[in-house]
């Protein structure tokens, strides 16, 4: 199960955070800081997995943005790595060449996309097309 998802830039600004477990605000800040510190200076040649307290961080870097998932120890790391990529592809399609600013100005849309992709910390939909079609319909409903 995914515990939380972060989208952070190199400077350590958290552009998006989604928690699937209840945490205190102070704890959230601390986690954001710690996860950022762990991923930001890692050599790209190293693994995309980090053992973090009792869980694992699966992260992937896209230009200046880090996508980090906190998952259980015995989850399939490679599968989550692929999930991050799928999520980024969806964002890229939706925003047509996504950049960090898109995420800032459309944070509510990003949450919407995330809610179509993951629910309760579990993968909900695996087809990029299904999600994009759905988002188009939802946009129409606005």
């Amino acid at each position: 199960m995914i515990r939380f998802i972060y989208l952070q830039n190199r400077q350590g600004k958290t552009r998006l955070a989604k928690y699937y477990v209840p945490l205190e605000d102070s704890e959230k800040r601390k986690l954001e800081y710690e996860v950022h510190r762990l991923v930001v200076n890692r050599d790209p040649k190293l693994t995309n997995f980090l053992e973090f307290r009792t869980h694992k961080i699966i992260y992937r870097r896209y230009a200046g943005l880090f996508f980090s998932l906190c998952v259980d120890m015995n989850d399939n790391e490679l599968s989550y790595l692929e999930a991050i990529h799928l999520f980024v592809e969806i964002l890229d399609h939706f925003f047509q060449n996504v950049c960090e600013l898109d995420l800032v100005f459309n944070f509510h849309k990003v949450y919407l996309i995330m809610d179509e992709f993951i629910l309760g910390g579990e993968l909900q939909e695996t087809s990029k097309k299904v999600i994009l079609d759905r988002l188009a319909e939802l946009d129409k409903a606005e």
Partner: protein
Amino acid sequence: MSLRLRELIRSVRSCKTAAEERAVIAKECATIRTAFKENDVQYRHRNVAKLLFIHMLGYPTHFGQMECLKLIAATTFPEKRIGYLGLMLMLDERQEVLMLVTNSLKNDLCHKNQYIAGLALCALGNIASAEMARDLAPEVEKLMSNSHAYVRKKAALCTIRIMKKVPELTETFYEAASRLIRDRHHGVLVGAMQLILDICLTNGPSAIAEFRSKVPDLVRIMKSLVLSGFTPDHDIGGLTDPFLQVKTLRLLRILGQGDATASDQMSDILAQVATNVEGNKNAGNAVLYECVQTIMGVESIGGLRVLAINILGRFLSNRDNNIRYVALNMLAKVVAVDTQAVQRHRSTIVDCVKDSDVSIRRRALDLVYALVNASNITTLTKELLEYLMVSDVEFKPDLTNKICALVQRFAPDKRWHIDTLIQVMDQAGGYVKDEQSRALIVLISNAPELQPYTVRRLYSVLTQSHPQRALLIVGVWCLGEYGDMLLLDGLLEDEEPVAATEASVVRLLETLLKEPMEETLIKEMLLTCTVKLSSRFPNSSPQIKAILEQYQGSISLEVQQRACEYSRLFVHEAIRPALLENMPPLNEDLTASGRANISMEGGSVDAPESPVAAATSPIPAAISPSGQVPPTQPASPQLVDLLDMNVVDEPAAPAMNAPAPAVDLLADLLGDGVAPPAPMPAAGTYPPPTSPLSAPSPADWTDISPALHVHSSALD
């Protein structure tokens, strides 16, 4: 007219200082507050959206919670959407306010618009509390058979949340879950697999038995995924829906565990996946990895297991670190089941220990520990020692102690054992635990043929500058016990000669004593060692006496006391050699047993009806040198027993020469209020498990005093 969300974001971004940003936020919050107070309906969702942005920046936004609830209760989709988003971001299951939303949620769950039902399911699945879960479970269960796949897949995942909050409801979902795996929509299937996985985790064997009948269905799903051609909607890296494949394989693993029939049903498809899926892309490797786990987890036939191990072998030689990491991870799980298979990849694994990636290093090390056995200990230890020299500081303590433990367990012969441990202590002595030093000392004391060799090795290592702590402990103890052997001839083969003389050994001790050391323990041991050498090196005894006297004024009480007591020994020349006799071989079992054990056995000494216990206890040995008196006078039966044992252990020659004065002096010593503690500890024969090498602390002293009383009264 209120600011638009985009404008707010822009104005916050244009702020140059934190103070400026705070001012903008404060102004906007005030406007939003007023709007809320005036019950502005038209811009409510825009205001809440702005508030969410402010919330993301980390400012307090509690005043918006009620507005979210109002938005959820509104009728249009855009309003509800922002309301639910706010609910999920600003609240979690622990807030009381959440109860207020239960009714709106119930209405929305039953809404005929699938998107609105979807919003409600999403919110429920993300933040439901136990009460909400209980209240809304029937609605969610109904939605699992909704006509829209969009609602069904959300309902399936929402059910997981409900189950986690209210585990006793789990059984009610069995039927719906079984129905869902016959769905054709991939999203629903992914949710269904996860749901059944969680049901099996929550309800254990009973649920697993229930769902085992679904194995053929799962196999059919897997088959269609693996054999289907290109499917544009679900294709990732040339595979059809690898996510669904991974989930299905995982579920198969849970269902096949410990059940031969189910395992048999899935063996064909597992073999197909293992042979057909290509490992040149991450998606393919994710499926292969899951497949290997399943093969190793269920009751597979040998051929399938070989296939799985070979896949892991391929992973290990992959250039991608991620793949190597999962391979090591998996091998670590396999090693308990099938060590032989993993042994074949030993050299690759050892290479991973030196990898630059800490995640890989750690995994590889764990694996190496598991792989060590009596036949490969020498080569693997060599590798580990090489790594110890270059490893990070954070790694060293763990690594050092693991090496010690492995050497202890698998050492092929004593000389190698001693050599390796000395090498470890020389490189990382600061990290070696005291038990390890003690174990080495026990080993040395039980290997009389290697004592000259060991003491020569230790002497040469100690003469190098700044020996490490553990090495000091062992080295000093051995010098004290076997220092005289340094001067003997008879080198072992391929051993370098050591140039040591009485004077050089004493000088070494003197230098070591002078070194500023953090621990008085080492100083205490050095003093004991020095005094012991006075009987081994009679010619140097004046110097030794002088060294001891230097420390009579030490600021450490323990050091001072020892120095005084040991100096005092020189007055009683007749019994000094006897007091400073070699220790008998230490009892190897005692290293393992704890202190409690000792005091128990010690207690039995003064219980006359248990001579056997007394004979096996460490106490008799403790009495021996100080009581080197042969039973010339009548003694109680158990004492005779004790002394008999001593005679067997070591010829009491020195004491034999002067039995009468010994008794007198002993009485003298015992009668003296100050002196008694000294001789016993100085003899160093009572082996307290914590530090066999140093004199017992006052606490230890009380332990052995009953034994002493028995002894002295017997002598009278």
